[in-house]
């Protein structure tokens, strides 16, 4: 608790400090590559019957996903607090890579906790983190995925709290993390709002983003939260089916609960044990969700839906072929839902979709899946 109070105070000060904001802005521009384009996806738009689809290209950021927005902010904060070691949990490895990157940039020691199963399915990112000088510690407890990596990072943090900052990767965990991460990610929506007003001279009809913990979705939604006419839709991982243990659709299927120091919705059994989750995308494979999403759902400000593995995979392929953009499997869930939603939207509807990351890390997973569904002869099908 003392460390959370320290973080809360440090952040409250940094937030108002022009020097902190300037340094963060400079790093986001010069180092990470902001602003990211809001790209009008013409061929995808045509394929979806003329609805105007814009992609917010967070996949073009340094390290390949939106995660760097947050790790740069938290890295600068950690330096202000005098910490010299930074730890993180990671699922798909994107947040781990973004943390390792910032640790290298700012000269911190870095340790990333990653579920053993995720280390296998995202092997490439494990190598990337190690190349960046981080130690990657396998987590063998529980489900061996993001949930247990988060638990292990918290356990390590309470042990090393005097020297270490815990750089959490999503809008989850105890206060002030959900707020802090949202603030660092909300640059996505601020840019997108300006860009769409410039391109279309009006606000979009719909915003779409995938939701695991929910950082890229909150980042996109936040600047539009008071634009009541803009529909906000979060897309969760439906896994292989919406039966307990086979998906990660917390907002669709969860009940209120407490995990990792936050009260939100939670996938759990009758007596409150947290359920295992399943998803083709390691980054969405989490049984909790950011409390602000639960609030948006409760107040009906946003809608939440789920898309299964197969559809997400198909959507990734579709975007690759139509636009020459290979998306990560996480935003592919949002792309898949877009395909279902588009016919129900009015003809000239404007949609902004958060393309939170690129698909390089998922090539191995995609290859395995596509091979197994086409009798080992991938050439024609892929």
């Amino acid at each position, binding site marked *: 608790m003392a*460390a959370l109070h320290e973080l809360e105070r440090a952040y409250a000060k940094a937030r108002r400090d022009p020097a902190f904001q300037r340094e963060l802005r400079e790093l986001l521009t010069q180092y990470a590559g902001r602003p990211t384009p809001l790209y009008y996806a013409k061929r995808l738009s045509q394929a979806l019957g003329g609805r105007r689809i814009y992609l917010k290209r967070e996949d073009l950021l340094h390290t390949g996903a939106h995660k760097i927005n947050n790790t740069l902010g938290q890295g600068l904060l950690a330096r202000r607090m005098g910490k010299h070691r930074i730890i993180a949990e990671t699922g798909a490895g994107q947040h781990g890579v973004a943390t390792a990157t910032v640790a290298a940039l700012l000269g911190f020691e870095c340790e990333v906790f990653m579920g053993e199963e995720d280390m296998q399915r995202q092997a490439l990112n494990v190598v990337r983190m190690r190349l960046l000088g981080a130690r990657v510690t396998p987590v063998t407890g*529980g489900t061996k995925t993001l949930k247990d990596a988060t638990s292990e990072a918290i*356990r390590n943090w309470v042990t090393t709290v005097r020297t270490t900052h815990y750089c959490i990767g999503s809008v989850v965990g105890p206060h002030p993390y959900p707020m802090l991460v949202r603030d660092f990610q909300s640059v996505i929506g601020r840019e997108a709002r300006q860009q769409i007003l410039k391109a279309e001279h009006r606000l979009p009809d719909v915003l779409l983003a995938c939701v695991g913990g929910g950082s890229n979705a909150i980042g996109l939604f936040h600047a539009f939260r008071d634009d009541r006419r803009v529909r906000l839709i979060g897309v969760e991982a439906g896994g292989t089916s919406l039966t307990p243990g086979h998906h990660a659709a917390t907002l669709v299927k969860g009940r209120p609960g407490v995990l990792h120091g936050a009260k939100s919705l939670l996938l759990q059994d009758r*007596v409150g044990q*947290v359920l295992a989750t399943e998803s083709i995308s390691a980054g969405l494979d989490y049984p909790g969700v950011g409390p602000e999403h639960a609030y948006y759902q409760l107040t009906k400000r946003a809608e939440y839906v789920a898309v299964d593995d197969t559809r997400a995979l198909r959507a990734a392929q579709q975007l690759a072929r139509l636009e020459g953009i290979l998306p990560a499997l996480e935003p592919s869930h949002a792309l898949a839902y877009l395909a279902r939603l588009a016919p129900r939207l009015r003809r000239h509807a404007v949609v902004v979709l958060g393309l939170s990351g690129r698909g390089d890390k998922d090539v191995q997973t995609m290859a395995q899946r596509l091979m197994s569904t086409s009798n080992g002869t991938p050439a024609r099908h892929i």
Partner: protein
Amino acid sequence: MERLRATFNRLRRSRRAVLIPFVMGGDPDLATTASLLLALQDAGADVIEVGIPFSDPLADGPTIQAASARALRRGATPSRVLEAIASVQAQLRVPIVCLSYWNPIMQFGSDGSPRSFLQAAHAHGVSGLIVPDVPVEEGRVLQDAAAQERIATIFLAAPTSPPNRLRAIARASQGFVYYVSVTGTTGARHALPDDLVRGIRQLKRMTTKPVCVGFGIATPAQAATVARIADGVIVGSALVQTIAAASSRDDAVQRASRFVKRLRSAVG
């Protein structure tokens, strides 16, 4: 709560430190837990702490994580653990303190409040409750509901807690204050931290309530050291390891009993 207070008062008068062994409810199974409670009482435990297994035990190291997972695999649930306690209630003279994470407590009733759990705990003979993931700042709901059922709420104080927090923790704790000896999770350690004595003394200056120390105390010698400065000693992981290493249920009870006897004679 009364039973807990009476125990501490009695031991304070006789200037003995309170010995509090911890077992995970349902590890290796619920019947063994019931036998363990009686055996540990006979071996010299003054209070027994019983863990309610949880899928995500954040404050626990590998030993208790594994025990929790074993108990869940064998079908332990919060209500079954309470039933195991109740099954030997008639023979138990020592107070039982449960340790549970917040979520199973919240889910026990249908309204998300801890009331149902606390009612059941009281009805099954539980005197106190430790919830490691409820900090004192968020403890109001828990404290109010516990007070109604006359269950003592015990909060955790850490070496990193600043003085004003330590004071709040001491104020909110009933029965005793739980001082966490290490910055970190539960688990046996080779050596006690250097600043432990200073930390305990600091807390004891702030409160007249008994201060019990846990996390990382593994051997009779360590327990004896702590007993000289604190009002009580909590031994968890080392005992859980002893139980896990046993070859049968009977062996588990015998080994646990022997270990607690050694702790007892070391603590005095």
